[in-house]
């Protein structure tokens, strides 16, 4: 899938991160399901145990809708991030969330809504579209700059300064609260660290894309 996250203030963030990571270590986490399969799209976050004050962010991201799907299925943001929802189709979408950390609705709109949506509370936000039942995406709001997402290999690599961290893993199909996956990991200076984390996944029943659209196989209905 094509990633179209736009870093409007990219330089600013990179600048802030390099200031902290004078000597960055790497923490490599392998996430598996309890059936022993490697899990992709799992978000791994690390929060320093000694409660270092973390800088607030004014990051801005975009989650596009193209061909009646959200282009990014899972997007991790730091609390305080604003996300816009540009609609690249020539029909309207109606983006909503009923999740506790952020309940909002952008009723039937074309183009990019004027006001981006700000995500201030940590937790998982499940996004849908009221008129296209199969459209689904997640915004996972965290309060640390140290996070990464696993790829097909099930491995997420975090760059962070040496120290002790609480490592939390989340996945859209995670069974139970993310807090329960917490693992305390000490990242020693100069060596880096690896960790294996096993999570329980649940079945999630989702509406299927309507057959009319899938039959035309990508052409002619946008």
């Amino acid at each position, binding site marked *: 899938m094509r990633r179209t996250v736009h870093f409007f203030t990219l330089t600013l963030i990179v600048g802030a991160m390099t200031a902290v990571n004078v000597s960055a270590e790497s923490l490599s986490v392998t996430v598996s399901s309890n059936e022993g399969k490697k899990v992709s799209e799992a978000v791994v976050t690390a929060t320093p145990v000694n409660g270092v004050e973390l800088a607030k962010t004014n990051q801005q991201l975009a989650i596009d809708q193209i061909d009646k799907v959200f282009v990014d299925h899972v997007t991790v943001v730091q609390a305080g991030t604003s996300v816009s929802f540009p609609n690249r189709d020539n029909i309207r979408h109606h983006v909503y969330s*009923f999740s506790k950390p952020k309940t909002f609705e952008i009723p039937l709109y074309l183009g990019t809504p004027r006001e981006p949506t700000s995500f201030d509370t940590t937790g998982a936000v499940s996004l*849908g579209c009221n008129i296209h039942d199969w459209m689904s995406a997640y915004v996972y709001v965290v309060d640390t700059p140290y996070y990464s997402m696993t790829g097909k290999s099930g491995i997420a690599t975090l760059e962070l300064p040496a120290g002790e961290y609480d490592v939390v893993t989340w996945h859209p199909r995670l069974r139970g609260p993310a807090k329960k996956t917490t693992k305390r990991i000490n990242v020693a200076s100069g060596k880096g660290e690896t960790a294996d984390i096993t999570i329980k996944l649940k079945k*999630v029943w*989702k509406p299927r894309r309507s057959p009319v659209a*899938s039959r035309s196989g990508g052409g002619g209905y946008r």
Partner: protein
Amino acid sequence: MGLALVSVFLAVNAANLTSAKDQIREKLKVSHRVFMRLIDARSQQLAEGAYVLSSDFAFKRAITTYDSQTIISAMDNLGGRIGADAMALVSVDYELLADTLKPEVTGEDEFIFADLIEHAEEEGSASSIVQMEGRVYQMMVVPILAPEPIAWLCVSFVLDQRLGDEMKTLTTSDISLFRIDESGIVQIASTLPVELQAELVGVIRDKTVPIGDRSITIPLGGMEYVTYKTTFFEDGVSKVIAVLQRSLQEGLLPYYRLRALLLAISAIAMIITAIGAVATSRSVTKPVVTLVEGAREIEKGNYTHRVLVEQKDELGVLASSFNHMTESLSEKEKIRNLLGKVMSPAVAHELLNKEVTLGGEEKNMSIFFSDVKGFTSISEQLSPQDLVTLLNEYLTEMSDLIYDTDGVIDKFIGDAIVAFWGAPLPRDDHAEIAVRSALRMQRKLAEMRAVWKEQGRHEIYMRVGINTGVVVVGNMGSKERMDYTMMGDGVNLAARLEGANKNYSTELMISEFTHEKVKDQFILRELDCVRVQGKKEAIRVFEVMGETGDDLGIDERFLPCFHAALGAFRSGDFDESKTLFQKALSFRDGVDGPSTLYLNRIAELKENPPSADWDCVYDLAKG
């Protein structure tokens, strides 16, 4: 003379009694099928209703207020739309958020049917029969998707007398519904007279009376009832049973009348004999002998025999009763022959209400042929006993699926099944139903293979050919022994298609005539253009891959790629075609019979280029 009369009386009496009882049992069986269908249809209707409610966006908004009074009032409003009797909303953590039956609940209590939610988490929805506040409900559980489940909506419909009465009107048998759990038996509804209801509960409680899925006769209120029990819902905790009944006395009324008449006539005849009135002896002896002969014929099973007594006296009446009885016996025999082939009640009804005469009519139908892949080699590897068991398991499941959709099984030929849709009940969608049934059969067989594999037994694969067209169908044979069957070119083509699957390594092939009728409902791939031996015109054949909207687990680029490859092949562009077929093959990890077949053809054609009049039509080898 006296002996002769007694023998007539006994023969007629026994035959009549059996016939009457059989008829009652047969009616009860039909009632049972009708009942099960109604229950199925109702469940489906309830599930659809529940789904519509759960996708109401305004309702999702109401849920996120997390205010139970608002939610209850929204649920009352929604429930009214589909006539639900109770609704509850349960959180993903199994907490009862709101319940129209318990408005005081505010979201702390655990939902008591947590296992139902667990089931719905696994399957996407759940249905059960539960008891709440002393009443019994059918409960459907569906997710509120936003777009993942944010809560579970439980929609309940009360099971009560109204349902029982409705069922009785439709099945014409008495129906009693009970819910049974460890705390005892609760009667949900009963159409029996009130004074008999308690008695029936007693009989069910008494475990020594074996009411089961074979009908038995039980006494109720001094009458005999033929009784048939069926369990239509069961979980670990409770079950709901339906008891279907017909009064034997009512059913036997005509028989008792006849018996009384017989007794009277016999008595009179005896008296007359005793007096030895010579004058009457001729007019009595001869008809009585005729009747004795008739009784013997029936004993031999010859139901077509009729006695000829033209007197207008009591013996004449007796003779005509006798003829009526044999008529009803032969009718029953006829029913049995037909029911053996067509189990679907609707089809049986159609056949029974028509005069059964020899002769066929032309009808547009869909014809189905199936056989077992590599049956000969399977039969060589198994003992005859194992082979019969395997085959019976297979044929039973497959024929049930055919009956379920009003299909008619024409015959079994060893491992092969010949069936058709569209007759005797005419229906426009026979092609669609035939193809859908075939898909269901393939799916069912896959499930069976999984079980066989686990048991370490042989796994069976099935090949199916379906054609649609006008063929002759009707009762064919002799007057004594006729079959409801079909014949015509269209039948032969279906058989050929079934065999042709071998060449393409496919399992479900249809002709262009069937394709024309079903192309919107199924995912189809064009396989080839073929010519049947002895025919001039070429026919396009297709593979049915699934139902439209099915997830086949195949790369979605595969089908367009295959069809493009086929187009290139037919236009003679073999290089382009080869590239496309190889690409199509790669989408299926190198396993696709038709693509491989075409690649072989291309290699051959490159070796021996085709003549100018090449029409890319291939001869269909004999199956």
